[in-house]
């Protein structure tokens, strides 16, 4: 029997969905931490309930799930309204079945469905024009209507080879249990057979040795033979040695939702409870990070030049009250000729004043707006891809990060990311050479892929707006 390319890819993708590869080691190297009871399913499908809060080196830290997987796809369904409505029902049924099997916390499984702009443009252009949220702040700046979700761009420190992707949908699966992720992914695409043509599968892990031990990044990198793995500190949460999930650096409650801070107009409210998601992959040159930057340099570039840190510290306090301002950033650059990662982002990623959110919560000045959900990976650059040539796919493991950030809008994310490159919101460009040491972290990162997505609220996560097609 001859297989079409589509059938062949479908079979290969199905195998890759459940395959563990090197990530099987995660279960041998780390124990699932105890988790709080799962709460009710929130309308904000990007939020995880039952997260464990612990204190590490005197700082409150959120302990993320151990296993992470992103599956991207294009639609394989016909564009007829009836077919799309049927697809909508089938996907929702498949997601609901998963939710019946697993509690919505890391001990169970969390699934987040995000839709790319190619979906809205091709499948539901009319309803999308009426309902996709509008970025008020960006519209005011540009003096024209600017959508809350924009196509991804290459940033000044991105290489020209960075691929701006055009996936129509992305599924993010997170759990402490690999079997849960594998089962959910397999059943999701089996139950929706024929609706999706998978484009990539991305896998990874997160887990520091908060309760002792080497921690997953060091242990996994060592097992994979990553250059510089020996230099990763014992217990580090990420390959680059610092903890990224301090409570104070993560958007709390619903702050990252479109409507919460008032930055975004959700119009008639179809996407209320939704958010914007940026998904990218980047390689991390672990060896360069540890051989070329000493601990002091790593602190300076990850946080701010001169940031106080005990030698060998991994979790550094970054409270709301101490958030860097734009003046601090300019001062850092004047004094040191360099900027730090956190210090450059905080002027745009932290609240400049107390704000009572649309959800009724009070968000204090200095609170972080973005909610990060990134995870380390040994994918090169993906676990599986339908287009290995374009993606420069290799089976050889390499250290990297699947970066995921939930922000109220693409413009909000862009402001943060541009600031990392020394481009301030008022357009000022600090004269930093792309990927130079003065840009700190950027000098050891190489971004391969980027894309922005709409994360609808849970009740509208399946083929959003299809029911509005006439």
């Amino acid at each position, binding site marked *: 029997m001859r297989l079409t390319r589509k059938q062949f890819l479908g079979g290969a993708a199905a195998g890759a969905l459940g395959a563990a590869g090197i990530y099987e080691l995660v279960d041998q190297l780390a124990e699932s931490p105890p988790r709080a009871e799962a709460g009710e399913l929130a309308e904000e499908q990007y939020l995880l309930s039952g997260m464990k809060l612990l204190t590490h080196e005197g700082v409150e830290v959120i302990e993320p799930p151990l296993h992470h997987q992103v599956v991207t796809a294009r639609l394989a369904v016909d564009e007829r309204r009836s077919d799309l409505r049927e697809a909508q029902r089938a996907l929702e049924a498949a997601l609901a079945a998963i939710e019946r099997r697993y509690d919505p916390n890391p001990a169970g499984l969390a699934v987040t469905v995000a839709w790319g702009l190619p979906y809205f443009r091709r499948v539901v252009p009319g309803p999308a024009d009426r309902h996709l949220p509008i970025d008020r702040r960006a519209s005011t700046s540009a003096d024209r209507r600017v959508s809350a979700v924009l196509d991804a761009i290459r940033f000044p420190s991105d290489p020209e080879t960075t691929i701006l992707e055009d996936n129509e949908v992305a599924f993010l699966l997170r759990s402490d249990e690999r079997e849960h992720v594998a089962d959910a992914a397999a059943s999701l695409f089996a139950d929706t057979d024929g609706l999706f043509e998978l484009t990539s599968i991305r896998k990874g892990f997160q887990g520091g040795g908060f309760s002792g031990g080497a921690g997953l990044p060091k242990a996994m990198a060592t097992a994979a033979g990553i*250059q*510089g793995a020996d230099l990763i500190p014992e217990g580090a949460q990420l390959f680059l040695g610092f903890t990224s999930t301090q409570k104070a650096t993560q958007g709390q409650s619903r702050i990252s939702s479109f409507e919460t801070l008032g930055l975004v107009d959700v119009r008639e409210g179809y996407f209320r409870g939704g958010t914007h998601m940026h998904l990218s992959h980047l390689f991390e040159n672990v*060896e*360069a990070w*540890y*051989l070329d930057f000493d*601990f002091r340099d790593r602190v300076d570039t990850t946080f701010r030049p001169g940031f106080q840190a005990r030698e060998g510290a991994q979790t550094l306090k970054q409270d709301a009250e101490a958030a860097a301002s734009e003046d601090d950033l300019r001062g850092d650059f004047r004094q040191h*000729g360099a900027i730090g990662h956190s210090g450059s982002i905080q002027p745009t990623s932290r609240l400049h004043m107390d704000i009572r959110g649309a959800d009724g919560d009070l968000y204090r000045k200095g609170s972080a707006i973005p909610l990060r959900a990134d995870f380390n990976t040994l994918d090169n650059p993906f676990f599986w891809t339908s287009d290995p040539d374009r993606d420069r796919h290799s089976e050889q493991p390499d250290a990297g990060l699947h970066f995921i950030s939930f922000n109220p809008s693409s413009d909000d994310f862009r402001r943060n990311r541009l600031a990392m490159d020394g481009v301030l919101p008022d357009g000022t460009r600090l004269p930093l050479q792309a990927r130079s040491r003065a840009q700190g972290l950027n000098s050891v990162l190489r971004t391969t892929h980027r894309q922005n997505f709409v994360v609808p609220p849970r009740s509208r996560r399946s083929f959003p707006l299809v029911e509005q097609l006439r």
Partner: protein
Amino acid sequence: MRRALCIALLALVAAGCSLDDDGVEGRASAGAPTPACPAAWKPGWQQLANDVGTRVYCPSWMPSPIDAEIGGQWNSDGVIVDEDKSYLAGFLWHEAGSGDVHVNFRGYPGRSAVPRCRDGKRSIPCFSDVRGTRKVGGKTVTVYTVSRDADQWHVTYLWRENGTLYTVSEHVAPPLTFQRVLANLDRIVGGLEAIEPQSA
């Protein structure tokens, strides 16, 4: 098969080469019972000891393909001796696309503090990020994973002796891994021969 391997090994020894425990080839003084600076390398190191007026250390082994002959093919810059008699003897093999093997020997007579390097306007330690100490060849060396200037990207072994600070460093770059470099440095420092200055 085994006989063929023995013949091959004998040929290597005869050519002045040896094999590490894991089969990595390197340059060594053939058949020496104790670590000894090879005769071909010794004059240069003796001259260096005389020039700086203090003990220097000549290796008995170097990672392939380089040797430690001062003024030889892998030491095109000779030895750099500063006014304070601190010196740098570097040995480098570089092949585009293949990688580097680069070993530096330094000495700072009369100094015990870690030297300072310039980084733009800043004065910073030339060696930082201590990764513990090791006992090698009777010396207790401190291992540094971040090194500056001519030692950038090198792992450095540092020790102090009779008021002089000595370092040996090797570049971590393909084809060498960090672990391989540690093993090489163990072997280099474990096989050093002290060369005393001789009065004219």
